């Protein structure tokens, strides 16, 4: 197969499979940017590299896939052009070893996509889980979350469980380095209620959110509380304003203003 070979795609349902087959063989989809400029559905020309992930493949759960589907709308199959990936350019005949290696990589990528795990988006995500019963441990809660989302794995989740600010419950903070499709689908400004139960525990309704409105506990205080420390933050702004001791609302401790600015929201 020579450089610059063109492949016609006659059925839009086969676009993804066709692209993945070509990526398996070491070819990368190129998009004619000049053609895109005339597409009324396209807000701006896209770099061809945005249409392929690190393996040169397109996955349904990848963000690039949504970009691709949006920007290939109305583009005829004749405009789709494949070129050798950088790995392929250095090889002369790779229909044996290279193709097998690419096939294995492609299979792994499809397995991850099948698991609904978005590896490309590795940004930390933090969720708040309210309404956890007092007798639940972190393991109980993790088991209940797995019942909600079967694709959640132990190594993905970092849980912190604290007594709720008010009410006889606990509040958990769930930190996900790699998050699943379920948690990606949670709406940022809304709470989601899930009825679940841990092993040997009664069924409860848990509230999951990522907006962190109102008070959220961040530690387990002792019996005698001598100070309160409240972190104010504005959601969806990469800014965290941290107050000092609550002299402003309580009047007992000296007020020393301080502001911390960090890169992300509640997770840091």
């Amino acid at each position, binding site marked *: 197969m020579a450089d610059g070979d063109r492949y016609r795609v006659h059925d839009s349902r086969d676009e993804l499979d066709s692209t993945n087959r070509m990526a398996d063989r070491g070819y990368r989809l190129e998009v004619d940017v000049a053609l895109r400029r005339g597409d009324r559905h396209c807000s701006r020309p896209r770099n061809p590299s945005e249409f392929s992930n690190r393996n040169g493949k397109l996955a349904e759960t990848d963000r690039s896939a949504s970009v691709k589907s949006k920007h290939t709308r109305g583009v005829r199959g004749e405009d789709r052009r494949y070129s050798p990936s950088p790995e392929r350019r250095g090889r002369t005949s790779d229909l044996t070893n290279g193709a097998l290696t690419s096939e294995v990589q492609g299979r792994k990528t499809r397995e991850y996509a099948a698991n609904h795990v978005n590896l490309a988006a590795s940004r930390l995500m933090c969720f708040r889980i309210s309404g956890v019963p007092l007798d639940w441990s972190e393991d109980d809660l993790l088991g209940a979350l797995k019942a909600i989302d079967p694709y959640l794995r132990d190594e993905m989740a970092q849980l912190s469980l604290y007594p709720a600010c008010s009410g006889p419950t606990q509040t958990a903070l769930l930190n996900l380095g790699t998050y699943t499709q379920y948690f990606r689908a949670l709406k940022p400004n809304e709470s989601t209620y899930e009825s679940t139960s841990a092993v040997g525990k009664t069924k409860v309704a848990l509230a999951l959110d990522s907006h962190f409105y109102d008070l959220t506990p961040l530690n387990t205080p002792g*019996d005698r*509380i001598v100070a309160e420390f409240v972190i104010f933050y504005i959601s969806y702004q990469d800014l965290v304003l941290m107050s000092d001791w609550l002299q402003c609302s309580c009047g007992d401790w000296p007020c020393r203003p301080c502001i911390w600015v960090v890169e992300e929201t509640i997770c840091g």
Partner: protein
Amino acid sequence: MWLRDFLPQDFKNIRIMSYGYNSNLVEKIVDDGFLDYRRHFIQMLMNARSSAEVRGQHF
């Protein structure tokens, strides 16, 4: 980064919380002003203190 790692571990008798509010306040989409936001925060804090006293935690 994980915010918990920045919190003090040596002080056992302090309570650390976060308070978030809808950033739509900034965009003036909702009618609630910052005065309501402040009142809401104070009310939430009072509720938290009452709940802590019920649990046997004293100020």
